[in-house]
């Protein structure tokens, strides 16, 4: 197996990617269908200052990047970069939303939800970073034929 292929915590990565994909699709579908998903008293002014479609689109793209990185896993040397970018986008986005919700009058529930999602996202990002480092310093070719 190539050095940078995801082996450790694979279950956590897959579970996080499935969760992120589910919420990404659901969030984006509701946003483009015109639902007013982000109320200032629940999400805070920072979140509301951005377009809800853009927040949802970023979450969806991040989760797709991550899922794609998992699908390619090991077949391409730089697939950890896809996982790193995807999980990093989702983690950063949920961190910003958690901070914004913490400034809202009725944002406690969203803050707790986004913080938990963000913590898991940063853990997955860290694992992807470790794999990316392995890919960076791996001495072989692009991995084809490696055992």
């Amino acid at each position, binding site marked *: 197996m190539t050095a940078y292929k995801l082996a450790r915590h694979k279950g956590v990565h897959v579970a996080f990617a499935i969760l992120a994909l589910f919420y990404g699709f659901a969030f984006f579908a509701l946003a483009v269908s015109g639902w007013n998903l982000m109320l200032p008293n629940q999400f805070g002014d920072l979140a509301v200052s951005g377009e809800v479609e*853009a927040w949802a689109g970023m979450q969806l793209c*991040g989760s797709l*990047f991550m899922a794609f990185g998992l699908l390619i896993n090991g077949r391409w040397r730089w697939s950890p970069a896809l996982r790193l970018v995807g999980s990093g986008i989702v983690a950063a986005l949920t961190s910003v939303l958690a901070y914004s919700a913490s400034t809202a009058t009725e944002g406690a529930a969203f803050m707790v939800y986004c913080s938990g999602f963000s913590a898991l996202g940063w853990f997955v990002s860290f694992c992807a970073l470790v794999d990316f480092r392995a890919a960076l310093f791996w001495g072989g070719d692009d991995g084809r034929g490696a055992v």
Partner: protein
Amino acid sequence: MTRIEWWIIGGLTALTLGFLSSLVITSSWWFRINSLTIHDARVGEIAGVNYDREFFRPFNGHWDVSVWQMDRGEWAAYCGASGDWPYKPSRPAQDKSFDWLTDDDPRCSRLPVGQYRAELTLTANPGTILARSQTITSNVFEVRP
């Protein structure tokens, strides 16, 4: 990596950058609406308007004004106006009239006795990927007999 996979990565990257630009580049890059105050008036008089806005960069904009009337305890749309304008960097004079705000719309120019409020939406670069809007709702103003 197959060619299709490269296309997927390219597409995802473009989409991500597009959504990111939506979050980072907001309407305040082009303009900011600070306040909209409409003064009370008598029937037949033209109400005074104090409209404070700043334009930071040139842009083609679309404005839309809706006037709402208090009707049996609920707000109902009464009249409105809209139009396009090439905005230039400036901070225009704030003192305007209600006729100016509603672009001389005949229905808005002759408001009957009642309570009203106006909602104004200004959109920079309408119809493009960089379309950004701000909406402001005025105070409740009164047209007296």
